[in-house]
């Protein structure tokens, strides 16, 4: 019995046809996957569904009734709730206030504060999310914020829930919580639209699947059991891809980066590690493990209280990003929206911002060289855009991520490259391309640190893996000893505590 | 005993040199008699209220005020009474709601219209002295209509000019956006360019700064100094600077009103009123003296300015 039906939806932006004639339908109580390359139009579809954007044409039916809502509020009332790709929380408000945003329990306009907090506590407990309702969202880590978003959708009695890459900054443990929740909602008959670039999740969760390509319907699979992984990739990317992580052996040189006893207010435990020339070191951990904090301290993005960083045996005491870059150490940050993209500026400028100092004699720009640089990365990473002059905010999430990566991959004179969640929201095709670029750079003698919450990725790409847990280095594995279960065990805090009390 | 006397002196534009001078002379009186003078700037009605309260709280017995707007009269009178303060006005005379002067409040000053008329008369006299044909002369009225005093002054000048036979249609309005020289300069430039055929110009306005702007405008479009007669009001340094320039400029003269009398005498009168219960005259009108390039030193000396 069809419950949600999307018919002939079209939507265009200047220069881009984001959706053309997309139709599919979902059964009651089903989880429907939505996949496609970056910029295929998934988020646009979700935005249309949420009432945030009005489609140029087409219609949406829920339970056989045509919906003609035009605002988020209307969509709400129709029982449609959406988690957007980029987090939509108010940092100044508490968790409870964020969860109730737009629908505070109130009498005559006066907020019932008690109910506000009480109901949230009980609901959070019930669904198994460990969050303090009175904590300010601004004090939470990215992962925790993502959980707030998820709680927001789950807490309401919705008929249709759409999740746009909800796990992109979650690690397996938090993802499990989400999967449990989805299973429960499903049992209640809620329709769930699920967008993800992670194939394992799609196979694990979804009943049916729609593939988009260039804003068009590429394929529709009413039964996920009938398709194979390879077939999906081929339909999505348009070609066979084979293994995404094509690890290649390299000969490693002497130690390049040496970090010892580093700590700061965000990471109170002093810790250190080293990376050799040509080595790719993976950092794995659950959210809140402190990986990003460690990298930011090394890079000088946050204030360091102690510790030493050497590159090729030379002490570099960078206390700000600029000094680090000059010393040959760069970091591609985790939170692209807050720390990465420069709003209002073109793709070209976003790529060239750091590396242009090498190609600008006396501070004068060489526009042609910058354009060539931009074109190279747009081409190689397949950034979907009408032009390199496009404002970066008009790109899809994954394409923004590619541009930010392009910024750091194009930097010259780099000795140590740290990438934090480099493939967050990036499609499989581009993932394997990024992987290739990292290998090329490593072969050129660069020391590379890859921070990721996606275990297959860390295992696929790294020569060595360091596991972090609760702000400490919990253990280390070389490639021949990679073992999924052991790595995961080490990352879990409670197990860890039991091991060394 | 004198040490217990505290007198407030409240003015509307504390940054203006004129009021600085008034304060300075009042201070001189305070030193001579040994009372305390409290200087407060109150650029709008609300600040005036606060200032009076403040004076009351400090235990002052009376105050002298130059109000930002004469219509504030009833409020000030009431507030002064509520704070049990003796009240005198200087420069601008309070009026009641119906526009009639409030007779009960002792006042020293000069009417804005009067002073404007004096400006007009001196310009007219100089036109005659230079033997110009009035119909060939243009007049720049640098106006700032937001300020009632400004309107009265320029209207006074126009009345006098017309009475002397100056053709009304030759008077052109140059509204300043602000009361500084640059604004007057820009406004006057437009007028000059609009009437490029007129070769001889006169200029008057709210104060010296306004007229200076007009004179600068004539210079920038190349009208020789001898073809310009500008007469300002105030006699502050910006006017004196003109007279100190090696060559005469179009700034012909300024009407110096004496801050000495306004500052020193009012303060003294107030002191007498408080200390010896000698009520001052209800109305003392002072007059301005025209200062020119060659006599400004003497005029200033006469008025008690160094």
């Amino acid at each position, binding site marked *: 019995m069809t419950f949600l039906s999307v018919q002939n939806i079209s939507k265009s932006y200047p220069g881009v046809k984001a959706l053309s004639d997309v139709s599919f339908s979902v059964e009651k109580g089903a989880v429907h996957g939505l996949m496609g390359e970056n910029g295929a139009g998934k988020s646009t579809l979700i935005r249309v569904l949420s009432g945030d954007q009005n489609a140029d044409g087409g219609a949406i039916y829920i339970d056989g009734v045509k919906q003609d809502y035009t605002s988020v509020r209307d969509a709400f009332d129709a029982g449609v709730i959406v988690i957007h790709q980029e987090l*939509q929380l*108010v940092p100044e*408000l508490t968790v409870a206030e964020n969860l109730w*945003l737009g629908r505070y329990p109130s009498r005559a*306009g006066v907020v019932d504060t008690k109910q506000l907090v009480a109901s949230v506590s009980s609901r959070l407990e019930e669904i198994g999310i460990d969050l303090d309702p009175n904590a300010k969202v601004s004090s939470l880590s990215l992962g925790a914020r993502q959980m707030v978003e998820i709680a927001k959708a789950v807490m309401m009695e919705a008929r249709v829930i759409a999740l746009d890459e909800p796990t992109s900054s979650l690690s397996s443990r938090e993802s499990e919580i989400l999967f449990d929740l989805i299973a429960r909602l499903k049992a209640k008959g809620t329709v769930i639209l699920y967008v993800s670039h992670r194939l394992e999740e799609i196979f694990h969760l979804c009943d049916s699947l729609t593939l988009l390509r260039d804003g068009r319907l590429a394929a529709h699979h009413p039964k996920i059991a009938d398709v194979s992984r390879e077939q999906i990739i081929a339909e999505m990317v348009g070609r066979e891809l084979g293994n995404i992580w094509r690890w290649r052996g390299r000969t490693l040189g002497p130690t390049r980066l040496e970090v010892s006893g580093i700590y700061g207010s965000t990471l109170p435990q002093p810790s250190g590690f080293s990376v050799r020339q040509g080595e790719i070191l993976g950092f794995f951990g659950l959210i809140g493990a402190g990986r990003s904090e460690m990298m930011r301290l090394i890079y000088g993005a946050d204030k360091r209280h102690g510790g030493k960083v050497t590159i090729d045996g030379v002490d570099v005491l960078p206390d700000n990003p600029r000094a680090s870059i000059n010393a040959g150490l760069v970091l591609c940050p985790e939170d692209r929206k807050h720390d990465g993209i420069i709003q209002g500026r073109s793709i070209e400028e976003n790529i060239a911002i750091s590396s242009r100092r090498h190609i600008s004699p006396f501070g004068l720009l060489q526009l042609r060289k910058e354009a060539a640089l931009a074109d190279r990365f747009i081409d190689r990473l397949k950034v979907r855009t009408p032009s390199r002059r496009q404002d970066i905010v008009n790109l899809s999430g994954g394409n923004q991520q590619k541009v930010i990566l392009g910024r750091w991959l194009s930097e010259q004179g780099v000795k140590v490259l740290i990438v934090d969640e480099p493939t967050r929201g990036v499609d499989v095709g581009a993932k394997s391309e990024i992987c290739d670029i990292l290998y090329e750079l490593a072969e050129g003698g660069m020391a590379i640190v890859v921070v990721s919450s996606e275990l297959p990725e860390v295992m696929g790409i790294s020569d060595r893996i360091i596991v972090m847990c609760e702000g400490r280095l919990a253990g280390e594995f070389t490639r021949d000893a990679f073992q999924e279960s052991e790595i995961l065990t080490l990352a879990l805090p409670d197990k860890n505590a039991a091991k060394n009390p | 005993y004198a040490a217990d006397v505290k007198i407030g002196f409240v003015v509307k534009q504390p940054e203006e040199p004129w009021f600085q001078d008034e304060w300075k002379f009042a201070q001189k009186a305070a030193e001579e008699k040994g009372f305390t003078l409290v200087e407060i700037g109150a650029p709008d009605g609300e600040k005036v209220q*606060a200032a009076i309260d*403040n004076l009351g709280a400090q235990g002052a017995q009376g105050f002298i005020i130059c109000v930002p707007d004469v219509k504030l009269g009833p409020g000030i009178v009431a507030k002064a009474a509520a704070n049990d303060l003796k009240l005198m006005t200087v420069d601008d005379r309070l009026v009641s709601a119906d526009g009639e002067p409030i007779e009960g409040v002792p006042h020293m000053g000069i009417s804005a219209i009067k002073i404007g008329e004096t400006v007009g008369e001196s310009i007219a006299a100089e036109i005659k002295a230079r033997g110009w044909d009035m119909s060939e002369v243009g007049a720049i009225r640098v106006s700032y209509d937001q300020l009632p005093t400004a309107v009265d002054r320029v209207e006074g000048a126009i009345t006098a000019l017309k009475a002397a036979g100056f053709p009304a249609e030759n008077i052109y309005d140059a509204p300043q956006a602000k009361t500084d020289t640059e604004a007057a300069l820009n406004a006057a430039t437009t007028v000059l360019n609009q009437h490029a055929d007129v070769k001889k110009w006169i200029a008057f306005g709210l104060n010296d700064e306004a007229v200076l702007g007009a004179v600068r405008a004539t210079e920038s479009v190349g009208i020789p100094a001898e073809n310009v007669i500008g007469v300002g009001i105030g006699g502050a340094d910006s006017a004196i600077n003109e007279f100190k320039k090696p060559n005469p400029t179009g700034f012909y003269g300024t009407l110096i009103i004496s801050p000495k009398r306004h500052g020193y005498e009012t303060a003294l009168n107030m002191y007498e009123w408080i200390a010896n219960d000698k009520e001052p005259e209800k109305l003392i009108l002072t007059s301005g003296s025209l200062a020119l390039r060659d006599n400004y030193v003497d005029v200033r000396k006469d008025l008690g300015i160094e």
Partner: protein
Amino acid sequence: MNSLKKILLGDQGLVVIFAVAFAIVSLTVPNFLSERNILGLLQSVVTIGIVACTMMFCLASRDFDLSVGSTVAFTGMIAVIASNMTGSIILGLAIALASGALVGAVNGFVIACFRINALITTLATMQIVRGLALIVSDGRAVGINDPGFYQLALSRFLGIPTPIWVMGALFVVFGFLLNRTVFGKNTLAIGGNPEAARLAGVNVVSMRIWIFALQGLICAVAGIMLASRITSGQPNAATGLELSVISACVLGGVSLAGGRAAMTGVIVGVMIMGIAENVMNLLNIQAFYQYVVRGLILLGAVLLDNLRSSASRR
């Protein structure tokens, strides 16, 4: 030492500092702590205080209103003219309140519906409204016919003048509105993240219009009080009020980046501004130096506030 730091830099830091400063001023400045001076002081901040209530909402929602000074003058003017013309004070006040709300609503409408920057929109209305005030009055103050009008400001209740009561009442009302109502929470949400608020179903457009309309209405209240206190409607009144009010709010910890506001903070901010002015006059500080002192106080207060919030951030 450390606990002192904690108190100073804590959430109530500004209040503590204010209390200390108040105590010092009371002890050292003669005449400061007399009943008369305190009442005078409170009356002198009535306009700023009243307008700050709604400016707080405006800033909290990441907006900005430069037109408040003009609106205060304009509505005061209207109150007097309308009272004189209709012969009824009540009617005059009603017309003034309505026209204030209208000015605010127009601001809000332009800003919210056409998405024009609030700074520029209100800079424009600031001029337009001031122009209107000058036009209706022909640039001159308008006297009040019915002396009953003065009573608004002169009357007292329990020995305290009415305007102070009005200001106090508005502090309470808007404090409640900010912290306890859906309206207040939504305002903060819009300021914290307008996009998130919109996507959560908050009607951002109508909220903004309401906030500005409210601002206009409250400006009219301030305008009426002012006209009654100065016993006339003055077209040049309250120039520069916008910057004083915004300063007071920012002093009180309202973030110009939106999303952060507290009524107690704003009250303290307003009082700091008032006390600084009052003390400078009591101490007979020269006009030119008053500028410098005013600037330094402003700078010092935000610096302190900044130390506080950066300390709490880590």
